[in-house]
């Protein structure tokens, strides 16, 4: 059995088209009150680039590739972890009336996400 994928030509364009359409529709419904968290949330989602960095680095065979690959993982990990941290913090602040306002100090929480 083969589980590796070959995405070529039109298949790639179909994936891009459907994903773009999905993104457009999903975001179209977001109220203005959430625009800042949303921007940072979508910023977090493209942090998935870190796994591309990991794959590139694992396949690196020269020092140049290793150095650039190292930076790819470093930057990608920063994108993912930072994007998550700020988005989660912002969204935790939105409370409805009747909720007692709790000030969660997330800074004290141990970092467990990578």
């Amino acid at each position: 059995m083969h589980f590796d994928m070959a995405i070529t030509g039109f298949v790639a364009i179909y994936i891009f088209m459907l994903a773009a359409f999905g993104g457009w529709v999903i975001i179209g419904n977001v109220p203005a009150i959430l625009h800042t968290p949303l921007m940072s949330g979508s910023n977090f989602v493209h942090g998935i680039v870190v796994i591309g960095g990991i794959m590139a680095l694992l396949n690196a065979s020269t020092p140049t590739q290793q150095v650039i690959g190292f930076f790819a993982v470093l930057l990608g990990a920063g994108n993912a972890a930072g994007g998550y941290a700020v988005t989660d913090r912002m969204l935790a602040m939105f409370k409805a009336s009747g909720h007692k306002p709790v000030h969660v100090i997330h800074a004290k929480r141990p970092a467990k996400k990578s």
Partner: protein
Amino acid sequence: MESTIAHLVTGTADLIAAFLFMYGLKRMSSPVSAPSGIRVAGYGMLLAVAASFLNVFTVDAAARPHLWVNLGLALVALLIGASAAWGKGRSVAMTEMPQMVAIYNGLGGGAAGAIAAVELFGNKTHGVGQLVVTLLGGLIGAISMSGSVIAWAKLDEVLKKPMRFPGQRLVNAVVFLVSLVLGGYIVFLARTGATPLLPMASVLWIFFGTTLLFGILMTLPIGGADMPVVISIYNAATGLAVGFDGYVIQEPALMIAGMVVGAAGTLLTLLMAKAMNRSVSNVLFSNFGDVSKKKQGKMKGEEKPVEASDAGIAMRYAKSVIIIPGYGLAVAQAQEKLYEFVKLLQSAGVSVKFAIHPVAGRMPGQMDVLLAEAGVPYDLIHQLDEINDDFATTDVALVIGANDVVNPAARTDKSSPIYGMPILNADKAKKCYCVKRGQGKGYSGIENELFYEDNTFMVYGDAQAVLVKMIEAVRGLGAAAA
């Protein structure tokens, strides 16, 4: 055998991750479900990152001798990058959020550019189509990285003024053209197998160098007020670059996540530009800020100052109050005091609502976040379209630290730079109090007709100090009555 299993597991993990990203973003469309939305997306990320290490079983033959070194490097990079960004993200002040989004976005763009670079330096692409996509991923990623860094520097006020020089657009165009020509040259070399004039590695370095330079040059002349739109554009650009990289390394999770963000970022950019009444190309190429220096006509009437305590007491005896906060409130760090005052009014039976202009704050939606941080429930917060008709039936509009977004000139004065921008109808309320540091103009340098209206009264002073006085005055009333 191992490689088949590895493909099966990583394929499944990526599929789940791609689903969780879209489901998470979907959940972010309401404040009720949004916190769980980001968590769902977070699980997707953890899963995909963990599974990506199974690629140790599928590496190319050329990389096999370096596998342990590469694995160690990957773990170290992951740990350093994630923990540094996590720590900063957890401790940064909410007012600095736009800068943080800019810098995280720059990191993502850099990663996308670097992945393209590894593929190019290793000459790993197959066929011209893949090479072109790789070059595009590298180009967009690199522009997004250097541009985001400049955007961060501007928002963080490391760079204070827009940098403009004569012939700037021409220089930018030439630099961009050089990048494109080099990219075309690389494709030409790959197609014909001709010997390059310089070693291939040098050509690639110059390609990335000029591209990074273009990102810097393109962002330098844009004013600080427009940075949110610029960040949003770069956010979409990074998404696009990630999507292209996903195609190059045959990783559908990257393709989907990248393209979803590309589309979402584009939509968000258009929404923001619309709220500012500007087109995206106007933001990028118009050098906004220069136009506002022209002379203003003399204002009719005069500004009428009142004491903070009097204004506070007037609101205590009003039936309804709408508060219009602007970035000045956040600068004075007065959000919590404001909410304390609101609670006092509410307990006296006054109906209080917040009206948020789409561009209040440094970034669309930032004022909502700042109010939420101070504990204001989101059902008190209303957006422009929902609330603008209510002003006519409201006793008091309280403007704190906002200026241009309540300037009626946007409706009437065709010569005004903000003409046509949707504004909050504070002037339609029966009475309007404006809290302001002193007499002066707003961010765009325009006189505000609202301040000269008959039913407008000015409360001069620092927002925090003014609110303290208002709170004391209203509390004093309660004590006197008891």
